[in-house]
């Protein structure tokens, strides 16, 4: 009953999406406000029905209704409650339902908070959202229905893949989808602007908060996924240049470029055509990511060929939306006049450089990810493109970008003074040189790359602080005045400082982890001691334990530093009976920003346990950086300018508004 209700709710959502994608368009054409307002009510109703459908699937999973195929294949009655819920999107059908739910959520948000948008723009934006939604509802209903029943219900389910039975599954996919799907709003705004044939600075101001929101979620989603892989996969890697990861990195790179070019458009009414193109490309890359992950094409071209229904359907959606929007772009973009001239050395120029490097980096990831597929389809040659290729091609693009980051905010709009900016960055440069010298002396002739890269990171962080000092007049004006100015600074300026500093922080973490990571691999028996980076880890012993749906072997290590006991670490190895598979649960001990990491291997006949112990210096900075970036994004999002412009009308009486 619940399954059928959920199924029916989804069909109704499709019907609403079809209305939403046509009626408001006609309304805009005939200038009929009543028809245009249909978009608002259908978007909200659609959200209601998709939410009902999603709730139905969650209920089926929570109550372990194994008469539903999706629940049978991905759940187990003994599975802990949290994984029964997260297991809803730990599979193809459920994750597509999450995808459309988030799409409907964003549509609903635009409908609810888009009161300050011109009526026809809102109608067009929601209509485009309706097209996307219709396509994906059809995809789910035709090829990936999560509500199908089994004629002869089994007693027990097949359980969720053990690797996914982790709190990471609760956070990572929803975050990532909020980012992926959030970019659909920028896309819809871009297509709406092309349909209306006009676009101005106000458009950029309306579209920016949505882009920023999606970008924040995508940043956090990627970082969260990286940390999850780090502790779950058991060998301490945090980025693999896997095609599935690249699929999320590409929209992030394009989205970051979009965020910056939208600033130019909002402030200077320039880069309009480019911003529209980026908005289209960003969401196209999100769609491409969905195709890569969902079609099975990555596993092998042949797997795709044997069961192509899903893949072909998404490929069709992909072609229609990307092809259609790019055709519309080619047709209408020339009608958009360029405005706002600027010299190459200017804030705009710096942001254009940012866009050039970010989009080239994005193109590099795109080529590296798709080239092997294309080559195999065209010639039958099989090649691999992995981490060594990306490290070699990606780094040379990112390093100049990092050098340029501190200069951007210090340059004036229209015509900047590079020498002046350089002079103001002298302090940051000196800080970077000191960092390089100290590290060089400390590592005594090790690799030259690491101190230089960390120096660059210090330059980025110090540059962000310089920007702050310049804006508040710190060191020049008396402190109280500087503090007052700091309070008066727009939140988006604070956001820039945090986001840019976050980039530097992440770089420090990446360089330290890859350069000074130490590793111990060996077989240990009880009371054996492993020494790594000054820490002594003694294996106390191993015990067997029964979990809710697994058995695990837990080893206990006592960690001490210079004879002082710091604590115990308990890595384990879990055996999931239903699927007959094992997972390693690494043990982590955090010391400052560094971590000790233990994962267990097999036990030999004589009782010796194979162990892998890592000391990862400054590793937490890798994820702390993105968190800072997202925090900067949130500050920027809370900027009064964006709140006034969109998405929320400032209706509160003046006395209730926060002082800024």
């Amino acid at each position, binding site marked *: 009953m619940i399954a059928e209700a959920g199924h029916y709710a989804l069909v109704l959502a499709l019907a609403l999406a079809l209305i939403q994608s046509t009626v408001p368009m006609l309304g805009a054409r005939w200038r009929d406000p009543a028809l245009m307002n249909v978009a608002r009510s259908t978007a909200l109703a659609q959200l209601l029905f998709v939410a009902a459908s999603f709730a139905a699937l969650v209920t089926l999973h929570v109550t372990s209704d194994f008469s539903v195929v999706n629940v049978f294949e991905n759940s187990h009655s003994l599975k802990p409650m949290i994984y029964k819920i997260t297991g809803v999107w730990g599979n193809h059908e459920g994750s597509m339902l999450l995808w459309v739910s988030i799409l409907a959520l964003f549509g609903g948000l635009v409908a609810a908070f888009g009161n300050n948008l011109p009526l026809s723009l809102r109608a067009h934006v929601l209509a485009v959202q309706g097209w996307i939604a219709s396509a994906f509802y059809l995809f789910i209903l035709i090829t990936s229905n999560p509500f199908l029943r089994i004629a002869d219900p089994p007693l027990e389910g097949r359980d969720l893949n*053990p690797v996914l039975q982790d709190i990471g599954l609760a956070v990572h996919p929803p975050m990532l989808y909020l980012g992926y799907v959030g970019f659909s709003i920028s896309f819809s705004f871009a297509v709406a602007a092309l349909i209306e044939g006009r676009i101005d600075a106000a458009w950029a101001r309306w579209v920016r908060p949505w882009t920023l929101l999606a970008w924040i979620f995508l940043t956090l989603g990627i970082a969260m996924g990286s940390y999850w*892989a780090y502790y779950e996969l*058991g060998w301490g890697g945090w980025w693999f240049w896997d095609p599935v990861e690249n699929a999320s990195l590409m929209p992030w790179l394009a989205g970051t470029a979009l965020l910056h070019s939208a600033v130019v458009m909002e402030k200077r009414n320039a880069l309009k055509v480019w911003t529209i193109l980026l908005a289209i490309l960003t969401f196209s890359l999100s769609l491409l990511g969905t195709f890569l*992950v969902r079609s099975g094409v*990555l596993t092998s071209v042949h797997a795709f060929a044997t069961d192509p229904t899903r893949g072909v359907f998404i490929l069709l959606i992909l072609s229609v939306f990307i092809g259609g929007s790019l055709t519309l772009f080619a047709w209408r973009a020339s009608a958009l006049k360029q405005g706002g001239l600027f010299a190459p050395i200017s804030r705009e120029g710096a942001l254009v450089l940012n866009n050039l490097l970010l989009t080239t980096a994005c193109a590099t990831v795109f080529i590296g990810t798709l080239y092997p597929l294309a080559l195999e389809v065209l*010639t039958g040659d099989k090649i691999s493109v992995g981490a060594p*290729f990306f490290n070699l091609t990606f780094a040379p*693009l990112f390093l100049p970008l990092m050098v340029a980051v501190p200069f951007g905010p210090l340059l004036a709009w229209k015509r900047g003074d590079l020498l002046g900016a350089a002079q103001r960055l002298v302090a940051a440069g000196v800080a970077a040189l000191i960092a390089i010298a100290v590290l060089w002396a400390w590592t005594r002739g090790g690799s030259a790359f690491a101190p230089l890269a960390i120096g660059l990171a210090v330059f980025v962080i110090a540059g962000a602080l310089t920007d702050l000092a310049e804006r508040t007049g710190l060191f020049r004006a008396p402190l109280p005045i500087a503090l007052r100015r700091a309070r008066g600074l727009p939140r988006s300026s604070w956001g820039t400082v945090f986001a840019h500093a976050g980039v530097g922080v992440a770089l420090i973490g990446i360089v330290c982890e890859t350069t000074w990571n130490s590793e111990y691999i060996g077989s240990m028996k009880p009371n054996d001691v492993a020494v790594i980076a000054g820490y002594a880890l003694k294996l106390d012993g191993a015990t067997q334990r029964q979990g809710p749906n697994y058995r695990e072997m837990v080893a206990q290590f006592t960690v001490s530093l210079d004879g002082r006991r710091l604590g115990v670490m308990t890595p384990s190895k879990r055996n999931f009976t239903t699927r007959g598979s094992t997972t390693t649960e690494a043990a982590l001990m955090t010391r400052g920003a560094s971590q000790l990491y233990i994962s267990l291997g097999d036990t030999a006949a004589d009782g010796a346990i194979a162990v892998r112990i890592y000391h990862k210096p400054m590793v937490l900075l890798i994820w702390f950086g993105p968190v800072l970036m997202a925090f900067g994004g949130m500050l920027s999002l809370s900027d*009064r*300018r964006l709140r006034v412009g969109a998405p929320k009308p400032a209706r509160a009486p003046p006395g209730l508004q926060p002082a800024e």
Partner: protein
Amino acid sequence: MKQILACLFAVAVMAGCSAAYAVQPDEIMADPAKEARARDLSRELRCMVCQNQSIDDSEAPLARDLRLLVRERIAAGDSDAQVLDFLVARYGEFVLLKPRFEPHTLLLWLLPPLALAGGGLALWSQGRRRARSAAAEDQPAFELTAEETARLERLGAAESAPQQPV
């Protein structure tokens, strides 16, 4: 990260690859310099039954065989290039995570720098063209309706601080 999710679609293929526990203690070579070379080479070689994992990361039996083979060749006195040649001769180019620069990978290696150069060139030529045409036309790029002008003014007035945020 999403490699974890990838397990969902490739469970069969990924069997033995997901919960990685790579280099085993019994594989390690006595000579640390040779072992370091073996590790570096391992990172450039693909575990061919896994999804995009190097043999250094993978715990699949095939990866272990390849790791032992690499160490065997190193112990026999092969140079790094010879080890790679040996493996390519046996398993094809698919085994290399960093493809060689050859006719069929030409585009792979050249497209990123070409994209950068092309983008830079396009920007430069457009900048020149616009600088030239700018002198000719200096008028607003669009016309606002009266209502929109009023709205823009309201927005402008609501904006508190005149600084230039990014």
